C-alpha cells in the first residue's frame, strides 16, 4: 500500500484527491473527485477531471502533484499510441500500467505522482492496477488511493464483493467516493466515473447535489 500523501508536502497545485477503481463482472469502474488545491488552503479548481484516457479502453487517474501527473500522463498517452501502432493491436492494460510505472520509477527522485490504471483488454478482460509514488506496480480486484482514501479503507473492505453487477459496482464506487469527500478537506466537488467494458467507455458525472447522503449531523 502506498503512504498517505499529505497535501502540504506537494509543491504547487496538488490533486488532494480520492481516486478508486473497481473490477466488476464484464468491466471496470474507475472514479475520482474533482478538487485541486494549493497548500491545502485554496481550491484552485473545483471541477478538474482527474480521469485521463490514455487509450480507447484504458483510463488512469492522477494523484499527487498536478504538474507531475499531467506531464507523466501526456508522456504515457504518447508512448501508448506509438505502441498500439507498432503492435497493430490495442495495448494491454498491464502495458499501460507498466509505462506509467517505468516513468514513476525511473524519475522517483523528481516526481511526486501516483496513478491507478484500469481498463479492458482482449487477453485478460477487465483489470485494475495501482502505480504508487515510488513506482510499485500491483494488480488488485479493486484499489483506492489519494489522501481521502484513508477514510474509506474500512468501508471498501466491508462492502466489496467479487463479481458485482454494473449497477452495484457504480453504487459502491459512488458511495465510497462520497464518504471520502465528506471527511477529507482536500477532496470534493463532483464525482467523475468512467465505466469501461468491451464495447465502450462511458463517462458519468454525479454532481454535488446528487451525491448519496449519509448520516450528516
Amino acid at each position: 500500500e502506498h503512504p498517505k500523501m499529505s497535501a502540504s508536502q506537494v509543491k504547487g497545485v496538488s490533486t488532494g484527491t480520492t481516486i478508486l477503481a473497481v473490477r466488476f463482472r464484464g468491466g471496470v469502474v474507475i472514479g475520482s473527485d474533482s478538487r485541486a488545491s494549493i497548500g491545502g488552503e485554496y481550491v484552485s479548481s473545483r471541477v478538474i477531471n482527474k480521469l485521463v484516457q490514455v487509450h480507447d479502453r484504458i483510463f488512469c487517474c492522477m494523484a499527487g502533484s498536478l504538474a507531475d501527473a499531467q506531464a507523466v500522463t501526456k508522456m504515457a498517452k504518447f508512448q501508448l499510441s506509438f505502441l498500439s501502432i507498432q503492435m497493430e493491436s490495442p495495448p494491454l492494460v498491464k502495458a499501460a500500467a507498466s509505462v506509467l510505472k517505468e516513468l514513476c520509477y525511473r524519475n522517483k527522485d523528481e516526481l511526486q505522482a501516483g496513478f491507478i490504471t484500469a481498463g479492458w483488454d482482449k487477453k485478460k478482460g477487465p483489470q485494475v492496477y495501482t502505480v504508487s509514488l515510488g513506482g510499485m506496480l500491483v494488480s488488485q480486484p479493486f484499489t483506492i488511493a489519494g489522501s481521502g482514501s484513508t477514510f474509506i479503507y474500512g468501508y471498501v473492505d466491508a462492502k466489496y464483493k467479487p463479481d458485482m453487477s454494473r449497477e452495484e459496482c457504480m453504487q459502491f464506487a459512488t458511495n465510497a467516493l462520497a464518504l471520502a469527500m465528506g471527511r477529507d478537506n482536500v477532496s470534493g466537488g463532483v464525482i467523475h466515473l468512467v465505466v469501461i467494458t468491451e464495447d465502450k467507455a462511458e463517462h458519468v458525472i454525479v454532481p454535488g447535489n446528487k451525491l448519496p447522503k449519509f448520516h450528516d449531523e
Partner: protein
Amino acid sequence: MATASVLQARSAGFSFENCKRNALVEANATDLGLRVPTARKTGTTICGVVYKDGVVLGADTRATEGMIVADKNCSKIHYISPNIYCCGAGTAADTEMTTQIISSNLELHSLSTGRLPRVATANRMLKQMLFRYQGYIGAALVLGGVDCNGPHLYSIYPHGSTDKLPYVTMGSGSLAAMAVFEDRYMPDMEEEDAKRLVRDAIAGGIFNDLGSGSNIDLCVISKGKVDYLRPHDEANKKGVRAGSYKYKCGTTGVLTKAVTPLHTELVEETIQTMDTS
C-alpha cells in the same frame, strides 16, 4: 607559460549550481549583516473569462518590491500572437521573459505551419517550459485567445500544471476576483457584460488585496479583432492637491546680495562631423 584554454561544452538544461550557494548565503545573511535582495513581484490580480464571441482578459497595474510599489502603471497583459494574449502574475522578470520566449517561438512555428497559432499550442509550450524548470520560474499565467476552434482560456501554474476553464483568476488577489466570478459568471455572456464582470473582478482584487492596485487593463479578443484597453478604468487616479504650498515671491527678505562672475576661458574648439546618412 602559455596556458591552453579548454572550451567547456555547456551541459544542456538549467544549471542549478548556484542554488546551493544561494541557500547558504540566505541562511547566514543575518549573521553577515546582509539583506537578501528580493525579486520584484507583480503582487497582482489577473483574470480571464470566456464569453459568447471570445475571451476577455483583465489585470491590475501595480508592481511591488516588498512593501513598496515599484511601478504604479505596469502592463501585465503580454502579447503572444495576434490572436493570443497572456496575463502574468508572480515574479515580473519571469512572466515578461517567459511570454516573450514563447511568443517568439510561436511566431516561428506559425510561419512554419503557415497557419494562425492555436491557444493549445501556446499552452503546451508554456507548460512544458515551466515543468522543465520545476517551479523555479515563478510565473503564474492566464492565457487566452481565439483560434480556428473558437475561444479558449487556460490557467498555467508555476510548476507546470494547467487548467482549461471558462473563467480563471491568478495572483495574490485571485481569491477576491474569484469570489466575484463565482457570484456572477454565466455562460455565453455578451461583450459588455463580460467586460463589466472582469472589471469588477479586478476591482475586487485591487481594493481588497494589498499587492494589487492602480488601474484596470482589459484585453478583449474575438475572431479577427483585439481590443487592448489600457487603461480601461483608472480606478485610482492621483488626487489633486486642494491648496498651494508655494511661498509668494518676496516672502523671504534679502539682506545682502553679492555676485561673483565665474570666468571661463575657451581653450580648444574642435568640430567632428557625424555620418548621418
